[in-house]
């Protein structure tokens, strides 16, 4: 039976005293306020435009409960298998939504990295004030529920003019113990003036059967001239649910580059809100999604130009196989005062079967007159002539199809830059291009 709203409220309330909070009641008050907001909003349904193509019924039916309290020694026997060979300067590991210190590595000099729980426990005022300041309580109930019930997350704060010479990594690993659980986390990324960093986030699972709900809110603040390259690869268990809300705020001359891949999960949704707070900032979003039988991938972009002279570019591509479904909803708003804005949005889809389905909706809402904006969308199939061409050069049909799929996504895959990540994605594409059943999940190492 699908739990009711009050079940969710009670479920969240019951654990609230065990959640991280500072010494005062301040955080408790905010959690309670968020819970009230959740109660008022409820969960979204298809009458809401933002959720028109994505049903939450399947997710709610699961009746996910809060994660079990486990000691660190219980967890992450398999962590080693999932640690990447990337030359990172720092790493945070979360297993089933809980921070695992012993597998994490703290970077040195100019960057503060900690678990959100630890930062809140010390009563860090800057962190406490920042939590929820960009995301707000949201419009669809999920964001409020996350604020009311989040357990942990990461805090990354890069000091003024510090430029990291390697990537930071956040690994989210789900174990079989996550079965039936929701894993609400929150990250806070604070890039101070003139700082520069690269962040790689990966979501992986120890198996492909566990059904859990990874629910994440990320708040990213970029001060003047700060720049962040943010790469995210979602490879959850094939039975998992994944919801990410990213809220990015940019001040003058700041730059954010997000590169996203949605590959795993039976249901995943990524919402990216980009706010230009001052002129001359730049945002780039690249993304790819691969869906197969029983999978849904949803990307929602909200790029808001309300100040002048900012530029944004979004390019998302999807590969749909079997009965896979995808939703792409890209909104660019250019306000009256946002003259000299530049915004380009593109979405392309390659359908590998007749049963696959995509709903794509690029939207430009422009109120300023001196702007350069464009948008485009395409839905196509593999080209028979191209398959013939490759086969006539000795490649078998499966390899020909896989190579064309790789080619289709190559410009996005290349944005992941690191060879280990590119190979990981290409291996997955090789599989998608083929007609074999999936035999095992990919790990990076």
């Amino acid at each position: 039976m699908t739990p009711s709203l009050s079940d969710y409220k009670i479920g969240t309330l019951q654990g609230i005293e065990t959640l991280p909070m500072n010494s005062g009641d301040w955080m408790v008050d905010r959690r309670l306020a968020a819970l009230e907001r959740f109660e008022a909003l409820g969960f979204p349904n298809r009458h809401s435009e933002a959720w028109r193509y994505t049903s939450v019924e399947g997710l709610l039916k699961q009746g996910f409960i809060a994660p079990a309290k486990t000691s660190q020694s219980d967890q992450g026997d398999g962590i080693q298998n999932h640690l990447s060979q990337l030359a990172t300067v720092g790493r945070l590991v979360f297993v089933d939504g809980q921070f695992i210190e012993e597998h994490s590595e703290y970077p040195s000099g100019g960057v503060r990295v900690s678990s959100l729980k630890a930062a809140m426990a010390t009563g860090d005022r800057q962190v406490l004030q920042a939590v929820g300041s960009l995301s707000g309580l949201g419009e669809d109930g999920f964001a409020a529920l996350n604020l009311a019930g989040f357990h942990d997350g990461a805090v990354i704060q890069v000091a003024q003019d510090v430029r990291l010479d390697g990537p930071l990594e956040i690994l989210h690993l789900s174990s079989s113990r996550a079965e039936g659980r929701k894993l609400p986390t929150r990250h806070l990324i604070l890039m101070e003036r003139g700082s520069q960093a690269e962040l790689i986030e990966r979501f992986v699972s120890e198996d492909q059967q566990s059904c859990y709900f990874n629910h994440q809110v990320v708040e990213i603040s970029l001060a003047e001239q700060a720049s962040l390259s943010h790469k995210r690869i979602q490879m959850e268990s094939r039975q998992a649910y994944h919801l990410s809300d990213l809220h990015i705020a940019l001040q003058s001359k700041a730059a954010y580059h997000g590169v996203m891949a949605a590959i795993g999960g039976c249901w995943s949704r990524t919402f990216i809100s980009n706010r230009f707070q001052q002129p001359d900032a730049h945002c780039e979003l690249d993304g790819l999604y691969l869906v197969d039988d029983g999978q849904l991938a949803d990307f929602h972009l909200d790029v808001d130009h309300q100040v002048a002279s900012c530029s944004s570019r979004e390019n998302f591509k999807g590969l749909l196989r079997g009965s896979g479904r995808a939703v792409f909803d890209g909104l660019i708003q250019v306000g009256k005062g946002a003259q000299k804005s530049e915004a380009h949005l593109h979405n392309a889809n390659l359908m590998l079967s007749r049963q696959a389905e995509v709903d794509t909706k690029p939207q430009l809402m422009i109120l300023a007159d001196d702007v350069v904006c464009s948008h485009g969308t395409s839905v196509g199939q593999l080209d028979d002539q191209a398959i013939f061409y490759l086969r006539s050069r000795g490649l078998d049909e499966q390899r020909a199809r896989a190579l064309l799929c790789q080619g289709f996504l190559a410009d996005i895959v290349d944005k992941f830059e690191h060879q280990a990540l590119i190979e990981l994605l290409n291996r997955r594409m090789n599989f998608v291009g083929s007609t074999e059943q999936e035999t095992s999940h990919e790990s990076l190492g």
Partner: protein
Amino acid sequence: MLAIKNLTASVDGKEILRGLDLQVKAGEVHAIMGPNGSGKSTLAHILAGRDGYSVTGGEVRYLGEDLLQLEVEERAQQGVFLAMQYPVELPGVNNMSFLRESINAIRRARGEAEIDTLSFMKQVKEKARQVKLDEKLLKRSVNAGFSGGEKKRNEILQMAMLEPKLAILDETDSGLDIDALRTVADGVNRLRTTERGMIVVTHYQRLLDYIQPDKVHVLANGRIVRSGGKDLALELEARGYGWLLEEVAA
């Protein structure tokens, strides 16, 4: 090497080839000429195994085997190569990686070891130079944004790298200026050996000034209506196809 007997084929129920006979021996270069719509490209496509054609009769033996029973890639693996009239653009597929993968697919199918990186690089550079293909194009996506001439040079480069036993060139001269034509022809001539058979499909005699064929065939209404030496091509150049078609009809 190749023996085509009484081949008939149709596209969408329309008969294109109506009893075609052709024999190509190792070491020979055959030119197939003919007016537009005579079935020249259909023949080239059927030999390479392209979909969309129904073979309704006759047979094609290649090195003693029934060629039409082989999959497209099996034909390539056994040494059949088609240089296409309209090479396909493959965005995102790197030209050099593709070439290497192609060579290795063919080698694997023959039970041979994969080519080592060093000799591959050496060969590809040398052969690209021979067909005057800018090295930069090796690093780009296959044919993507290439000019017409660059695409044809790339086809000849592939042919040189894959070293086929039977090479079929489908209107490789179309759309080429005289310099490109000469380069492409040089590339083809360099591949002439006593073991290799070649079929050069062309509408114009011009290409045959540079590639001297052993035999010239005229294809009209789905049949070879006349075969001869190089002189036949010159006569066609001088007099067009009309007289021949009338003679055949008479």
